[in-house]
């Protein structure tokens, strides 16, 4: 069974602190996506990681992909309140009958002053 596991599922941080969200997956894939969802809103694309060793950065967020370990990380640096949202990773399994992305359950991040 294909699994995409995010860890942690809930994260409460103080402003200014650093933290990492982990995304482990159980199938071979060299493409992974990170999305952000604000409460009551839809999913917004954050990062597209297309190969082993890929690293992308946008502001205080940095995503990386290790396809050999089947692991992606989303690192938060010096968190601010505006980063409060739910973050999803999604693994690309384009040849599967389940459609091309399998999503993790999401990590709900709350950044407090």
């Amino acid at each position, binding site marked *: 069974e294909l699994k995409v596991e995010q860890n942690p599922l809930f994260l409460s941080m103080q402003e200014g602190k650093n933290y990492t969200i982990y995304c482990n997956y159980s199938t071979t894939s060299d493409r992974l996506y990170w999305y952000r969802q604000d409460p009551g809103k*839809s999913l917004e694309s954050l990062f597209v990681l297309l190969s082993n060793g890929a690293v992308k950065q946008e502001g205080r967020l940095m995503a990386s992909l290790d396809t050999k370990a089947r692991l992606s990380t989303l690192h938060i640096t010096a968190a601010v309140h505006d980063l409060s949202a739910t973050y*999803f990773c*999604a693994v690309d399994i*384009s040849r599967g009958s389940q459609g*091309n992305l399998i999503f993790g359950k999401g990590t709900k991040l709350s950044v407090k002053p």
Partner: protein
Amino acid sequence: DVKVTQSSRYLVKRTGEKVFLECVQDMDHENMFWYRQDPGLGLRLIYFSYDVKMKEKGDIPEGYSVSREKKERFSLILESASTNQTSMYLCASSFAFGIADAYNEQFFGPGTRLTVL
């Protein structure tokens, strides 16, 4: 910018009603998807379509059907709505699988929050 639109943001229906959710994308994407999102369960794929008139079942197709008569439009149909279909429904689209040098990033619509009473 890719734009995916959904016909309603909020919808309230009664048990047994037939419900249509419409999704339109303007990027000439081959693939379109319907998900439902429930607390604690994440996104679950209901159906997807990789071409006009083509469809494939996802993880939870029971109680749903779909229609894709035009490339830009993908409809989700609840034949006889039930209370356990109360959920947020998200439509997404992407380019075709496996296009060289392209990736399969999905672009999402704003969602339809459906309540079945």
